[in-house]
């Protein structure tokens, strides 16, 4: 995960600069890593909401700039808030570069993705994803598994009403249920991503042999 920070655009992130960034986030390295991921996720959401087509790249550019400032000796009390400020500058620069405001769907150039391009590949990936999903789902604690299935499964009727009933049954508010479902889904998503990576590695290995 942390390797994503090594991506660079304007400035090369050195190991020392990255260490300094982590130190600024937390003295405990594990917690620093978590905080780093959290800031990065916020930055991605920010750039995504502001119309970036490369939110992850922009997030990494922002982090690089923050790391650079720290290396230059700038005292930063709150990395998260500081990162947001830097992100806003980067966004303005990007928009200035484009010479226009964020584009709406109707005006935006065609995305590079091609949805129907390779049906076989898509199906293969879909099957692998489904398999990983089943494995990861089975690895969740039983209560989480039941909650996530109940929350997301397709049913007849209005979903929001069903979720209210689910929240009542669990004796929690709808917002609390929503948060819990979101957390479990994120956990599941991480597991599926790792599983797919492993699956791809296995496939490559089979091809090599």
């Amino acid at each position, binding site marked *: 995960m942390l390797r994503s920070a090594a991506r660079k655009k304007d400035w090369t992130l050195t190991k020392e600069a990255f260490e300094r960034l982590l130190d600024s986030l937390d003295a405990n390295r594990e917690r620093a890593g978590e905080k780093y991921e959290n800031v990065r996720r916020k930055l991605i959401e*920010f750039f995504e909401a502001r119309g970036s087509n490369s939110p992850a790249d922009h997030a990494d550019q922002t982090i690089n700039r923050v790391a650079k400032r720290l290396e230059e000796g700038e005292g930063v009390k709150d990395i*998260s808030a500081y990162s*947001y400020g830097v992100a806003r500058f980067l966004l303005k620069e990007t928009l200035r570069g484009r010479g226009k405001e964020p584009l709406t769907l109707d005006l935006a150039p065609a995305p590079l*993705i091609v949805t129907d391009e390779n049906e076989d590949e898509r199906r293969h990936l879909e099957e692998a994803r489904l398999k990983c999903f*089943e494995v990861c789902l*089975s690895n969740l604690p039983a209560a989480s598994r039941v909650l996530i299935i109940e929350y997301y499964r397709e049913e007849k009727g209005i979903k929001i009403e069903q979720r209210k009933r689910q929240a009542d049954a669990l004796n929690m508010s709808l917002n609390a249920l929503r948060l819990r479902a979101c957390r479990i889904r994120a956990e599941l998503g991480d597991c599926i991503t790792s599983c797919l990576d492993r699956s791809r590695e296995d496939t490559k290995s089979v091809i090599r042999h």
Partner: protein
Amino acid sequence: MEQIHDYEDACARYLLGELSEQEQTELEEAYFADDSLFERFLAVKDDLIDAYARGDLTGPSRERFEQHFLASEPRQQRVEEARGFIRAVTAASTNPAAVNTNNPAPAATTTSWWQPISSLFASRPLIWQAALAAGLLMALAGSLLLVRQFQSRRAERERVQSEEATRRKQEEELRRAQVFPANEDRSDRVGNKASNESDKRPQPKIANNKQTSGPVPTQVASLVLLPFNSRDAGGPKSLTLRSDTTEVRLQLVFKEESFSRYDVVLRTVGGEQVLHRRGLKAATNGAGKSVSVTFDASLLRHQDYLVTLNGINAQKQLEAIDDYYFRVERTTPQSTITPR
């Protein structure tokens, strides 16, 4: 409490691009400063995508979602992922064997969720043990029910896969036959309810009508569309969707045009945009070209629809190619199809 509600509402409006610049900045500052607010923001976002993927988002919200939220490619991917996730969860909800036995490390699975539960009994007072036992009994009863459903579900899945393969083959044959139909009467080939008509308009291929019993996991209704000819007075052809139809696949047939990418917009006759797919590629067969688009059946209501196919030229500008017209009729699996 009101503040909590306000925050969730603000998040939704932020995601739909309905906040002013200042409001956006305030919201962003808030979630950058407070992790719990960021978590709530993510939850609202998940719910919004989920609602759209299910077709629960309607009216102006849906329009805003498509125009603003779906403006970037990463977000379009999120919606696709959400659809896949809903399908997978729905399948898993009736497939406990898939959940529990396809695990590459079965031992780990066995210990991962049974052992902690059994350890709860060892360390809790009697009243807790009773409560836990009751809870577990309920879970067990549910699981047994699910196991019973699994066998029939697996058989259904195999049947659907087989039907899907047959459908694709038939669809390909039909497409070949329909590319240059100018002077042909295709009514005998289509096999639809309007079998006495001889026209050049879209002919639905009602794969889902072949199903005879019980709900199945993925029901695809497929429709091969030829360009709409305004001189045809017979009205649109129908695509019949049963309540258990989950996906619709539209295949837009057109005469030879040279574009590298295509853009498909689906609208109601009233002009409400239902779907916008970009960057599609055309498939070519011996006789011509077609562009296919697959989407959730829940997006379609019982009404008429217009589909516009545009080509994206080298300057990334849209060029209109053809319009297509069809009617959606929603029916229950038991209902009888009445010829129009």
